[in-house]
């Protein structure tokens, strides 16, 4: 009898272990399949759709930056359009003025935006909530005018026309597909880096600061350092997205980076799920496609439709799409795993 129940117990434990391995194997498999599909898409779709999806991924990286800062670290920013512009113009000026090849402009763009973010984050330490929002709003408002002012560098009102990245001849890709694949690679790296940071010590410190800054400080977290780091990391992501957008569009000008861009990032972030990584991708889709759908639905008042779409999303899913779906999915997965465990136990 005892041998039997010991055997049952062992089986149950074994089943449990297999289930854990299966869950993560499933996740790995699903991710690999998703990446494979994403990489194959440009070969099935028409060029215009490839371009649209490239913009989705670029916006996703930018929104991911915002999620890190606002969702995980609780510092609101209405100025990320400005950092997006900084990345775009860094890439554009390096390519246009100094003949730097496009792939070599991503690192400088990211680095410069990181430094900008840290420089911005330091004084921003003094501000909380709505006051920080106002300070970052100032950044968004100033950006187009600053770009026009420093016109020897930025080309001023006329902007800078760029030669879009050409794929290596051996690969036989067209321009749109090549830029899509570059953006896809950048998005995957961005997600990996963000996940590593957020799941590690830095991420926990950020969340602690967001949820309870005084307790976090009392626990020994250097809030100033982590908050500044959050700002810099966030702007690094958004700056790289900006540089990619310069490749995809082939033209930068002050008009491209208005206040509305900053607002769009925040909208995309909130709709996708501001404290999630996957939500950034949903946000990218929202920013890219909803204005166009709104235009198709109503010629006269497309922005009213856009606003309505936002309201519906926030009302039905206050934590954003991914923020709402993820807990539900995890709950279902756990229940399924538990049920399987129970069945195994009973049958064993």
């Amino acid at each position, binding site marked *: 009898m005892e041998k039997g129940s010991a055997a049952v117990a062992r089986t149950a434990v074994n089943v449990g272990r297999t289930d854990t391995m299966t869950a993560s194997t499933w996740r790995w498999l699903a991710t690999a399949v998703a990446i494979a599909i994403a990489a194959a898409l440009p070969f099935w779709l028409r060029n215009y759709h490839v*371009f649209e999806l490239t913009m989705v991924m670029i916006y996703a990286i930018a929104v991911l930056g915002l999620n890190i800062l606002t969702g995980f670290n609780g510092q609101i920013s209405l100025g990320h359009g400005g950092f997006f512009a900084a990345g775009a113009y860094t890439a554009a000026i390096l390519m246009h003025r100094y003949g730097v090849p496009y792939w070599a402009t991503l690192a400088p763009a990211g680095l410069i935006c990181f430094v900008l973010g840290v420089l911005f984050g330091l004084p921003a330490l003094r501000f909380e909530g709505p006051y920080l929002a106002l300070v970052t709003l100032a950044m968004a408002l100033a950006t187009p005018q600053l770009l026009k002012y420093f016109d020897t560098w930025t080309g001023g*009102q*006329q*902007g800078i*026309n760029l030669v879009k990245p050409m794929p290596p001849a051996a690969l036989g890709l067209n321009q749109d597909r090549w830029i899509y694949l570059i953006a896809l690679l950048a998005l995957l790296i961005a997600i990996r880096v963000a996940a590593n940071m957020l799941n590690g010590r830095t991420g926990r410190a950020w969340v602690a600061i967001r949820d309870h800054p005084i307790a976090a400080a009392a626990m020994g977290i250097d809030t100033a350092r982590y908050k500044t780091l959050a700002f810099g990391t966030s702007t690094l992501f958004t700056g790289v997205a900006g540089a990619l957008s310069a490749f995809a*569009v082939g033209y930068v000008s002050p*008009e*491209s980076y*208005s206040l*509305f861009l900053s607002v769009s990032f925040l909208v995309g972030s909130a709709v996708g799920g501001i404290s999630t990584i996957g939500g950034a991708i949903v946000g990218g889709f929202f920013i890219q496609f909803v204005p166009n759908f709104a235009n198709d639905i109503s010629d006269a008042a497309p922005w009213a439709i856009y606003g309505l779409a936002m309201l519906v999303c926030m009302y039905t899913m206050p934590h954003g799409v991914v923020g709402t779906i993820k807990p539900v999915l995890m709950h279902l997965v756990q229940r399924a795993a538990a049920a399987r465990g129970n069945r195994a136990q009973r049958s064993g």
Partner: protein
Amino acid sequence: MSPRTLTSWTLSAAGLLLAGGLAYAAGQYGPGASDAEIKLGNTMPYSGPASAYGAIGKAEVAYFNMINEQGGINGRRINFITRDDGYSPPKTVELVRKMVEEDQVLALFNTLGTPPNTAIQAYANDNKVPQLFVATGADKWNDPKNHPWTMGWQPSYRIEARIYGRYILANQPNAKIAVIYQNDDFGKDYLTGLREGLGAKADTMIVATKTYETTDPTVDSQIVSLQGSGADTLLTAATPKFAAQAIRKVFDIGWKPNHFLTNVSISVGAVMKPAGPEKGVGIISAGYLKEPTDPQWANTPEYEEWLEWMKKYNSAGNLADGNNVYGYSAAQTMVAVLRGCGDNLTRENVMKQAASIHDLKLPMLLPGIAVSTSATDFAPIDQMQLEKFDGTTWQLFGDVLSGSGS
């Protein structure tokens, strides 16, 4: 040659001729054109800070609706696809790509704004899509050698400034000219055009120039400095807000130069009244379209026709808004080009017809001004007439003057 070969050759030739003939009869079609319709693509800022120009797009929709109701173009209706780019170049690129690759438009028509058009110029030329009658005053659209698929419509800033230069040279050959201009391509185009109009005497006649940035709070110090140069003539190449400041300052410091003002800042409501209408008396600018509020056109058949169109097809439009005359006239130019294509509606032929407009007179262009293009002249309208502000409105005077480079 054997009889069999001869027969087969003859039959083939006959077959080809027949097929060619049938094709000719059925019409040669590029993307966006068919027996039933012609697709045109357009982007306008219907939202955002430049949204006042959206009235132009609405006027064009209304005009094409009227043409369609009257039977279309050689029996084909115009499918005018216009979308909102909010004056943001990346949006323009996206929308234009969609119109070319998804909607497969025959041509782009009257896309508005210098940055938006700059963003799509390379794409349009690389893909051989006509980028016709762009709604901007920049001069760079008249470049058939490097951009054979891009064409402007309205007189460019440079053309306008050439007209001022030539007028000054002819009427005040001893004038001492000062120039205040916005420090970007818009302002620089005016200085370049003025110099071209003055010709060899440019260096001696222009005694002082000052620039301002759009981020500057005022232009008062520049005006004072220009007065100090002893100039008796002033050219103000400034956008509305700064133009109003300049007009006010010139009056307030007691300076009474011959004052020339750019056509973009002649709005009575947006510039002259805020400056103080009595301060703007005597200022000279130039126009090429009939102002809908100008009483001299009130009972003319052309105006009546425009008014009737406004009431029937564009009733939401403002009767005092010059943008409705602009859209009406630009649309008429496009219709003339499409009519000229006949049944050969390929992009190449559209471009060819657009580049061979001979002296087209439009009802709402000032009398004496006509639309003309050639393979080397992609500036359809290069004539303007001077007008003087009388405290209430702009009064046309003198002859129609040409600002063409040749």
